[in-house]
């Protein structure tokens, strides 16, 4: 029994989506987390709440709104001008947009908590040593918050690999473009192809276990280094 058809294509697609999503979520999430960690105003609380929404809402709510947003009555109209495509749904770009929205809270929450734990003191000390704000952030605050950031990024990555409801609703199940591992697994189970389903499901269990284990070991090690 070999590896079933289409699995490698879906695997590559899921991994690319998770990589791109994680990078974008970190690029957006870290500045956001920094801003939120040092804000005391009411709008910081509002922003935190809004950013947490995707964590609490069912993915189908996000999927439903994205389906409308990406279509010709939303961003799709803009896309039509730029690319000639009437919609952003059913594309890798559309999946990235949805996945970033879903993964951002993991990065922000974890990194924000790390920044808050580090506190202002190390940065202020760096200032007294005449470091510029950017340099203080880059060489002091960020390295100290790295374990939190890493945890957030890894969870965002793993979550994107496991995302189902959202990508089902905006993907359209196109092989090589939007048929991710989780969707392929669903197709296999529903059509009775359980041999293929076992490959994917088993692989995902192993993957999830490895991710959690590696994360735990890495955090322990970082904690030891910090101490």
């Amino acid at each position: 029994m070999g590896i079933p058809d289409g699995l490698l294509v879906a695997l590559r697609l899921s991994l690319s989506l998770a990589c791109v999503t994680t990078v974008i979520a970190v690029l957006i999430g870290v500045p956001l987390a920094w801003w939120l960690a040092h804000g005391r105003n009411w709008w910081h609380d509002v922003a935190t709440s809004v950013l947490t929404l995707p964590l609490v809402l069912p993915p189908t709510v996000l999927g439903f709104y994205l389906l409308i947003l990406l279509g010709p009555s939303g961003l799709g109209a803009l896309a039509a001008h730029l690319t000639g495509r009437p919609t952003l749904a059913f594309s890798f770009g559309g999946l990235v947009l949805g996945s970033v929205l879903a993964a951002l809270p993991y990065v922000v929450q974890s990194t924000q908590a790390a920044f808050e734990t580090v506190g202002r003191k190390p940065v202020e000390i760096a200032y007294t040593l005449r470091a510029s704000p950017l340099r203080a952030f880059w060489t002091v605050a960020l390295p100290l918050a790295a374990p939190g950031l890493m945890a957030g990024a890894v969870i965002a990555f793993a979550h994107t690999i496991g995302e189902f409801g959202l990508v089902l609703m905006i993907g359209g199940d196109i092989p090589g473009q939007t048929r991710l591992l989780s969707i392929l697994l669903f197709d296999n189970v529903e059509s009775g192809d359980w041999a293929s389903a076992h490959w994917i499901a088993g692989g995902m269990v192993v993957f999830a276990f490895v991710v959690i284990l590696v994360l735990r070991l890495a955090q322990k090690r970082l904690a030891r280094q910090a101490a």
Partner: protein
Amino acid sequence: MQPRARKTPSSRPCRLLFSVLAITLAPAVAHAEQARIAIAANFIGPAKELIAAYTKKTGDTIIPSFGSSGQFVVQIEHGAGYDAFLSADEAKPARLIQDGYGVQASRFTYAIGKLALWSPTPNLPASEATLRAASFQHIALCNPDLAPYGAAAVAALKALDVYQSLQPRFVMGMDIAQAYQFVQSGNAELGFVALSQLHAHPVGTVWLLPQFLYPPIRQDAVLLTNGAHNHAAQAFLSYLKSPEALTIITAYGYATP
């Protein structure tokens, strides 16, 4: 102020507990008058109307679940407590009987589905010419491995000899309801749906595909072994064959056997 006849502190939780018990035990008591029925997504429209009419007539409770036929077969084979199954094809009920999940000789065709191409997009009429011209980005259908209407759409496209050229533009829903939703939301310009789904939404143009392009979608119902002694399930299946039910079914664009 002296509170009169004040409830004891425990009366509220007690009543709550009683209500919960009443709700959970009720189905066991009234088992004969309640049936859970798995219904293929293309039949949502008529099913709701049929259930309303049947409930009014008998007082029985019919609890419908809607989804793709393939999904239901997997659920039934793994102990889902449905009493009857209205499939979108004839193969799945036959297989369920063969494997011991369906009651022998309970299978019958309740409707014959009609495949339609629907385009709400202006300047893109639903027609054979549009399929040949392929002047669109996305055409929605349901997954042919999961849903009979998807298989019918693929058969029709192959008969028209446009399957190869259109395949890259396919977007697939897991059931016919999702294929419809892709078109309705405007993300796909057109799509293959069940004629019954267009009952309420005459926006745009519809091409009813000629029957010779695809094998007839004979939709069979079956009484499941789980509901073998469920009177409501049996009565509802019989009701589907009544002239009143057939009128509702044909009104939604199905043929009847």
